[in-house]
């Protein structure tokens, strides 16, 4: 149990409160013409998350602050935001990771509605445009289709996507070009292109080959850095590119 004791001591240090300084970019369409900054000071434990910092502001200082959140542990994809210049989920980043001086802004590339809440509709429209569903016309009968563990592993990484938008909204091409479907949509296309059960590979690759598709990607790697699920996004995009070039069948 020695490691447990060491762990417990490390945990104690995480319980000492520190002062956290937040600068949050605010915008309320009811009253504002353009966004402005507001500052808040809150006391938190280093083990608290950025989401907790925002809740503390909302619940004890200023109830007008708006941000989306639900699960509070990185599985629902509600709270992608820019924290100190980088896209992250508020709920999986601890104060001890990001520091006690925080600059928080909405993600870029989607229209801001209020404070940290952006319009996700364009993002979901891009997602829908890649036919994000299994297509297989064969009648499998009353039993499961078979898939080997190797075939299943082929697309495992891209099944992890939670559609938070952190990748797409970190991509310079996505900011500049509203035609580009963006990394998240490509990740979801990849998930089906490399699923041995799917029969619409050719159609999907055709979509990916269009002007709005994979060729817009300039391999900036921002998306891979931003992904809270650790999906190798750039690699997935490259795999789709290679599939278009070498094995479109």
């Amino acid at each position, binding site marked *: 149990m020695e490691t447990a004791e060491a762990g417990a001591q490390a945990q104690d240090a995480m319980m000492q409160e520190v002062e956290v300084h937040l600068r949050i970019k605010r915008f309320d369409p009811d009253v504002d013409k353009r966004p402005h900054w507001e500052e808040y000071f809150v006391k938190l434990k280093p083990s608290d998350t950025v989401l907790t910092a925002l809740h503390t502001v909302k619940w004890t200082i200023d109830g007008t602050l708006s941000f989306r959140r639900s699960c509070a542990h990185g599985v*629902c994809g509600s709270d992608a935001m820019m924290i100190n210049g980088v896209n992250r989920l508020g709920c999986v980043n601890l104060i001890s990771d990001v520091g006690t001086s925080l600059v928080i802004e909405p993600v870029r590339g989607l229209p801001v509605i209020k404070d940290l809440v952006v319009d996700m509709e364009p993002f979901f429209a891009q997602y829908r445009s890649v036919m994000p569903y299994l297509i297989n016309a064969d009648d499998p009968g009353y039993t499961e289709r*078979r898939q080997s563990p190797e075939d299943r592993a082929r697309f495992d990484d891209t099944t992890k996507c939670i559609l938070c938008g952190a990748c797409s909204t970190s991509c310079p091409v996505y900011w500049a070009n509203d035609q580009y479907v963006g990394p998240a949509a490509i990740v979801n296309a990849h998930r089906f292109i490399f699923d041995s059960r799917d029969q619409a590979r050719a159609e999907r690759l055709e979509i990916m080959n269009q002007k709005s598709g994979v060729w817009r990607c300039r391999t900036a790697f921002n998306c891979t850095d931003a992904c809270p699920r650790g999906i190798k996004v750039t690699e997935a995009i490259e795999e789709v590119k290679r599939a278009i070039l070498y094995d479109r069948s």
Partner: protein
Amino acid sequence: MVRENPCKTGAVNIHYHSYDAVIVGAGGAGMRAAIETAGKMRTAVITKLYPTRSHTGAAQGGMCAALSNVEEDYWEWHAFDTVKGSDYLGDQDAIDVMCREAIDAVVDLEHFGLPFSRTPDGKIDQRRFGGHTRNHGEAPVRRACYAADRTGHMILQTLYQRCVASGVNFFNEFQVFDVLFEGEGEDRRAAGVVAYEMATGDLHVFASKGVLFATGGFGRIFQISSNAHTLTGDGPALLFARGIPLEDMEFYQFHPTGIYGIGILLTEGARGEGGILRNGLGERFMERVAPTVKDLAPRDMVSRAIHAEIREGRGAGPNKDYVYLDLTHLPPEQIDAKLPDISGFVRTYLGLEPKTDPIPIQPTAHYAMGGIPTNVNGEVVIDSAGTVLPGLYAAGECACVSVHGANRLGTNSLLDINVFGRRGGRRMAEYVAGVDHPSVGKEAAGDVRDRIEQIKASNGKEKVAALRAELQQAMMRDASVVRTAESLENASRVLAELRERYRDISIDDKGSVFNFDLTEAIELGSLLDLAGTLLAGAMARNESRGAHWRDDYPVRDDANWMKHTLAYREPDGTVRLEYKPVVGGRYQPMERKY
């Protein structure tokens, strides 16, 4: 600090829509129902979250079905385990339906594209889970179908993908605050809902022949919870306010392994893979409590065992208030392959490495066995005789069929949402085809509008977040894993005071766009009402059964209490209790030993 934004009271826009079917909630249950009605009739799915944000996505471990892909298994064995796990409060007709249709439900999901983990020969792989056994309790059985430790995520994504494929009409970020009926007494039938559009603050009246509620759980009545912030029981609470009873609300499951202090869940799959619980002395205490299945005993037993270890001074840590989940003896590759997500949670939130460090855990509020009473077709029943209220349906965690009785077995909820989501959707489709459109008055949204205006206009001195925290603490302390008459009375006193203070709340945000200050205020009202039904049921039930443990009545009392509780709201706001019999079947009550 807080800037004024204009109070737009008096100027609420109200929109009117007409549909054949409305589904409230787009988690697993709501979307599974939508797949049954989409394309067949005009359907609206109304959801306060984007569908893929629903908490079904947080489910980790698996979904049980007796596929016998890796071991001999029969749906009857599954049914036996479920009946026994329910502490004989589950209705056996409904349990039979669920366990028999489990196989189809899994196969359906596979056909929809769900990427299950596979066996070497390409079949859906299966693993062990608490309370699931071969041949009526002989030994643990591999029955849980899974996709790594993100089974719920894959179910939610797959169902959403299916909905996109079939063009389901979603109203995202619309929060339902009221239900509409037409007619009185025996002629009463469902007629629609009233929803609040978060992006604009406008109200929407949806007139509809059929209404299916699938709004999920209400774990946020407790302080330590595995449930999302948004799981506030809106559906059951608004129906309760309109005179629909709620069933078995005193049965609330605490999952044994929540991350200490924050409640984030570490799946039972971790023990299915061989993880062990240890107290502060390093002892494997489950050996004493459940000699046969040990760490894989059902949740109520394991949570109580942890509670007892802590109470008797054998907890770990500076305050001796937690125990350990120990995975350190498992091969590191197995942890990486089978439990990647939960390992990530432990690293992120505790800064510990599960391959080398035991993990501090405590029981966490997890699952509502109780809810809106339904029959096996998802039809809402409003009395002990099983009278159906036409046009009204419920499925998923907000409903009570009852297949989980006094204690749900792990993996049976992902199953429940799929089996009864499908059944509810189908039955609603049949019903809708045979009736005409209800008429809904111009003033249908009046009550919701008035409530919103009143909250926005109030200058009261109470704050929503503070009241909610007090409620959650009181419920955790006095009405969670172990209860007594005295603790429940304490909680009731706190609740009565909080209700009084709730009348005096005010909010900062008076605006119309994404006003979560307002929606949280209304959600708190739901939590308070549901806590009231929970406490009333728990106080009356002078026995211990499943998740409801009374230290002052520590035995199950089948002679007096093998019955379901129905809680009704009286006009003065108090709770009246009635009871209805449990549907028996093949399995007679016996002592629950594992």
